[in-house]
């Protein structure tokens, strides 16, 4: 199977270029296996990866135009020649490795931690199964970045718009019955950009490898703002 892979080494190249590799595929082969095979042919090829089972979020890449996690993308699903590029819109460090610091900054910007103002109980803070269920579809995020780097609003305003990942996280804490910083969280999302630059293009939903729905989370935040405003 033919793979066209984006290459860029800042010590050598002025701009990224595409290199063709021929890879022998096998049943059950994932894109990460193919990338490893390419690295076998050329050790200078660089990409991030680790767990190999879609939980660490290291190996997000753009394949045939879509952001995906390489380790859970079967090559049998891909049309040849397979074009593998780094995430769009992020500065390229080398080959498929991009600089994700802006993405992590947006994550940090939503205060992604549980805030509790009451004194802690001696045992656990109680939470009913129904309350806990509200976190399903939110807490599973692996910070791979597939969503935010597929979002046109994030491409245009990465400094100002939080992007789908950070907003999903914001809702994960707003939705947590144990969290006691609702007003501060909502206040911090005010303004034309941070939250409201989402134009419900829904690329994030389409690409999320964990099947999460940031657009829906953003909708919930807007609803809650509205409810509090009335």
């Amino acid at each position: 199977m033919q793979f066209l892979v984006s290459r860029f080494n800042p010590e050598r190249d002025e701009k990224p270029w595409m290199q063709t590799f021929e890879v022998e595929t096998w049943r059950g082969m994932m894109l990460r296996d193919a990338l490893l095979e390419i690295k076998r042919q050329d050790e200078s090829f660089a990409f991030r990866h680790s767990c190999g089972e879609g939980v660490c979020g290291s190996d997000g890449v753009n394949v045939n135009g879509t952001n995906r996690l390489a380790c859970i993308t079967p090559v049998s699903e891909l049309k040849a020649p397979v074009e593998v590029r780094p995430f769009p819109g992020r500065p390229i460090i080398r080959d498929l490795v991009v600089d994700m610091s802006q993405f992590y900054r947006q994550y940090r910007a939503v205060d992604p931690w549980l805030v509790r103002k009451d004194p802690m109980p001696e045992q656990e803070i109680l939470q009913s199964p129904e309350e806990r269920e509200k976190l399903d579809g939110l807490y599973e995020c692996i910070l791979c970045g597939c969503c935010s780097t597929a979002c046109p609003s994030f491409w245009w305003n990465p400094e100002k718009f939080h992007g789908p990942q950070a907003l999903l996280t914001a809702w994960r804490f707003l939705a947590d019955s144990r969290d006691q910083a609702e007003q501060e969280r909502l206040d911090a999302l005010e303004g034309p950009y941070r939250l409201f630059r989402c134009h419900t293009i829904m690329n994030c939903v389409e690409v999320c490898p964990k099947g999460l729905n940031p657009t829906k989370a953003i909708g919930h935040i807007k609803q809650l703002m509205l409810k509090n405003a009335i």
Partner: protein
Amino acid sequence: MALIKRRFDALIIGAGGAGLNAALQLARTEARVAVVSKVFPTRSHTVAAQGGVNAALGNVMPDSWHWHMFDTVKGSDYLGDQDAIEYMCREAIPTVYELEHNGVPFSRLDNGKIYQRAFGGQSQNFGGAQAARTCAAADRTGHAILHTLYQQNLRARTHFFDEYFAIDLIRDDEGAILGALVLEIETGEPLLIEAKATVLATGGFGQVFRTTSNAHINTGDGMAMALRAGIPLMDMEFFQFHPTGIAGKGMLITEGVRGEGGYLINKDGERFMERYAPNAKDLASRDVVSRAIVTEVKEGRGCGPNGDYVLLKLDHLGEEIISRRLPGIRETGKIFAGVDAAKEPLPVFPTAHYAMGGIPTDRFGRVITPAGTGEEVVPGLYAAGECACVSVHGANRLGGNSLLDILVFGRAAGLDMQEQLREHHRPMNEAGVEQAMARLERWDQKGEGIGVRELRDEFRKAMEDHAGVFRTEEIMTEGLQILRELRDKLSEVRLQDHSKVFNTARIEALELENLIDCGMAVAVSALARQESRGAHSRPDYPNRDDVNWMKHTLYYRDGDRLDYKPVKTRPLTVEPFPPKERVY
């Protein structure tokens, strides 16, 4: 160019659960703390832990830390140190509450308390009925814990060096640890971090085996750094093979599947664990279940066209339980085995999973080495988590005790080191820095040679063939010979890529050196131990031998030398659990 230096009070190497929990304790003090991680923190392998963390909360049925302690001592096949085990089982309870307060989204019971499930090796009342002690966030507990700890560290403004690879510890002439030389992966530039205290929290080395549940990053970096600093590794022959990896691939299927009521069958549809462990059945200890699976396959009762795996049946649990309690493994089964576990059984076989052994520490996380007839602390050095050996797991770890270990002893290390941080920095040892730089510069050698991947593949295959579930003198002697030859070939390995920026080939070369050091520790320690205990199973010495072998192994890199030290059989406050025959 002059080497760049940075000074911190404390240096933590590794940003999994142990490193992050140590950092969190220190963040509450005035200390300046650096956390160095070769990957972005939430990529650390704690993220992959599925089933849960043990604590005798008693939320589902009566429980006590003392029963938890008994199960852990028994599970360890009486090789665990009972003072550390008592400490861990007592601390488990406040530790889990603290995690919950920090935001971990645990699954819940109807009364709002943390959900707890049954796991292997758990009992009520010192060996009685099955207990339910494993606190779970569905089957993504490690992910939930790691993200929460990272989040709380962000809140505490911990200083992270993301994507920095630790090369070596720097040690002075008195043996004190002064910090470490690290490499910024993005620029390829080395950096010296000086610290009054250093914590190794680098996790395991499962990548030393070909089929493993472990991530690409699990290459034993901290353990090998300790070895190169002259510190021995303890009980390295005890390596856990998790019974249920996806056959042929190794991805983990949590013990929680069996905890929720799933069970194993052979090609005749027989629930074979009933023969091996009449009481605990599928929830016997991991070493017992792994051996049973390998035996079924060896004796011709395996499933599939080649008869080389068994089946894990859980479809009878029903769609609802599976999607609520085990959603992650259903996904994993679909992706990697092409099987919907809610409809069909999953093909499984043991997979290399966890190192019981590691850097010897006491229950405060301090690294200790033999000195004269006793022991002494290595000044300025701590270790916690899978890279450490306290020892709470002895010869076999119970499921749910590894998340517990990293949290309890990461915290203990963070607390204990606060005293030391009031001291001054010791003077830097320039010769030590040069030695560490030499390790890095060795990879600048150019020319033709063996490839990193080639040698790594051979080494991993040899480990799998010669240091697996069943080990005989013959297999291991042959294996050790092969491994030594492969180790000798390391000097012939050359990189072709000598660029600086994000050179992953260079990182893999450094990791290969670490893997080989860890693998040798396993092979040498295993050949010497002439008994069967826990995960170390010798068909030629089928019984446990408490007279000659109830002792910890210490492996030194220098000359592949072995030493031994006694097991601590005296708990802190309760009566010791004397060795008994271990049946499930």
